């Protein structure tokens, strides 16, 4: 899928538009989506309500994986307690039945949290491809302000509708501060 097109000598990763406020970025992302672009990303110093949907945020597998992990952890924790107190070391404590399940609940809950947290972190890293030591967007000098006060929209070259001139024209029409080429 990773298709790049040559412009002169340099392969480009995409075209990036710089904005100075979140509303413009959000409007630009919505316009780009309406124009049919789907491979794009937005970079902002603060979370912006609605932006993820605007750049085509898709539900990922992670929530289902974490839910399954939580169920697994809870079941495992409960069964561990049950096995220890009923099968492996059957002692009568305070006249209670061997299967005194209320005592298992804290362990059940904790192992649910533990397993789902570990799986959430590892699964998130596996699905989003982090850690990523190199990313082309950092080739743009102005991009360092993405963590301070500027808002960027990058339409990537692998987008089927991407065309260096037409896309640049489109981005210019969104009235950004500047449109920059991102070297690959």
């Amino acid at each position, binding site marked *: 899928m990773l298709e790049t097109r040559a412009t002169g000598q340099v392969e480009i990763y995409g075209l990036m538009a710089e904005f100075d406020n*979140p509303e413009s970025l959000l409007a630009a992302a919505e316009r780009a989506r309406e124009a049919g672009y789907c491979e794009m990303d937005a970079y902002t110093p*603060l*979370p912006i*309500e*609605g932006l993820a949907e605007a750049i085509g945020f898709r539900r990922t597998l992670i929530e289902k994986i974490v839910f399954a992990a939580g169920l697994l952890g809870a079941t495992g924790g409960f069964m561990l307690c049950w096995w220890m107190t009923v099968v492996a070391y059957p002692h009568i404590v*305070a006249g*209670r039945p061997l299967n005194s399940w*209320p005592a298992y609940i804290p362990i059940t809950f904790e192992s649910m949290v533990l397993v789902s947290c570990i799986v959430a972190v590892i699964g998130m890293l596996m699905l989003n491809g982090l850690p990523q030591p190199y990313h082309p967007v950092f080739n743009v000098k102005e991009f360092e302000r993405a963590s301070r006060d500027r808002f960027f929209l990058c339409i990537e070259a692998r987008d089927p509708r991407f065309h260096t001139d037409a896309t640049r024209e489109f981005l210019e029409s969104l009235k950004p501060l500047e449109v920059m080429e991102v070297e690959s």
Partner: protein
Amino acid sequence: MTAADPVNVRLGQWQRRALLVGIAGVLIAIAGLLLEGWTQFLRSYLYAYMFWTGMGLGCLGILLLHHTVGGKWGMVIRRMCEAGARTLPYMIAGMIPILLSLPVLYIWARPEAANDPIIHGKAAYLNIPGVVARSIFYFAVWTFYAYRLSKLSTDQDASGDASLIDKMRALSAPGLVIFTFVTTFAFIDWIMSLEPHWYSTVYGAMFLIGQVLESFAFVIALVIVLSSRSPLREYMTRQHLHDLGNMMFAFMVLWAYLSFSQFIIIWSGNLPDEIPWYLNRLRGGWGWVALSLVIFHFAAPFVLLLMRGIKRHGERLLKVCLMMLVIRVVDVYWIIEPAFYGQKIQIHWLDFVTPVAIGGLWIAAFLWQLRSRPLVPLRDPRLEGAPRETVAF
């Protein structure tokens, strides 16, 4: 709000309907009082009264919390919480029948309690003048915070003065601590003392968190219904719903945590002075009520409120809120009523009448208070600004 405002007109209709329902309920409850006697009436009355007073207390708690920590989630529900908190002084009237007939409900208030060494040992705290005086004090503290915060909030509507935000915070941060203490003592006096041999240090917090939870369910349901109209339509975003749903989820889990902590400690200890509280609430049919709490007060809302698609969708979240409100009534019933009936479940027809009667009157008073001010704190800078930005901060 001006009189011609469509929201105001609609709220006025609801207010009249609620008042009619409340009056009808009161008449039926009075008929029940004449038919079934004072004792049964007060037993049915106490839990309904605690549920609806708790609605006001929960609103005050949310308000204090919001002013202390800030956050845009509170902006859309602030006026509802203020109106709910301002109903508290009216609840003093509802306390009068209970305070006038303490010996009917409370074992410790009866003369023969002097023969019980445990109750006798607590007599310096648990006595009729003490409980009456403290009840007045509790209401005075709650009323002070409810009206002081409402006053500052209305001043802000008039002047838009940003320093009022700090003033409200400076009042609320210590207020939250005082409120939690005072409310804990109130619940000890009014309901924990129904079984004066028993005690639990987590009781006040557990019951209070439950009340905050029911207030969250109520105000969230209300903003969802009102968000289809101006002015809330302009300010509500999906992120607001999401954050409010998360707050309700957090308080629901906190309720479960505190309730289960109390249970696991008493169950593990299995001591004769502690365990009867749970025996009274698990045997003779009460176990089914307890099971329904585990399912509908914890398991079902836990799974439902984990889902993003529910928290960001008004109609779905509304259904969860309504479920929470119903199960909250059951929880208050389960905590209070077994004190009278022991290990045998008894549900009286008056138990269904009293929550509707008090609820009708409470909602009418609430809407009357709500209509007296704009539905959103218009001049608070946190309401304006970019509604697109995340509302978590």
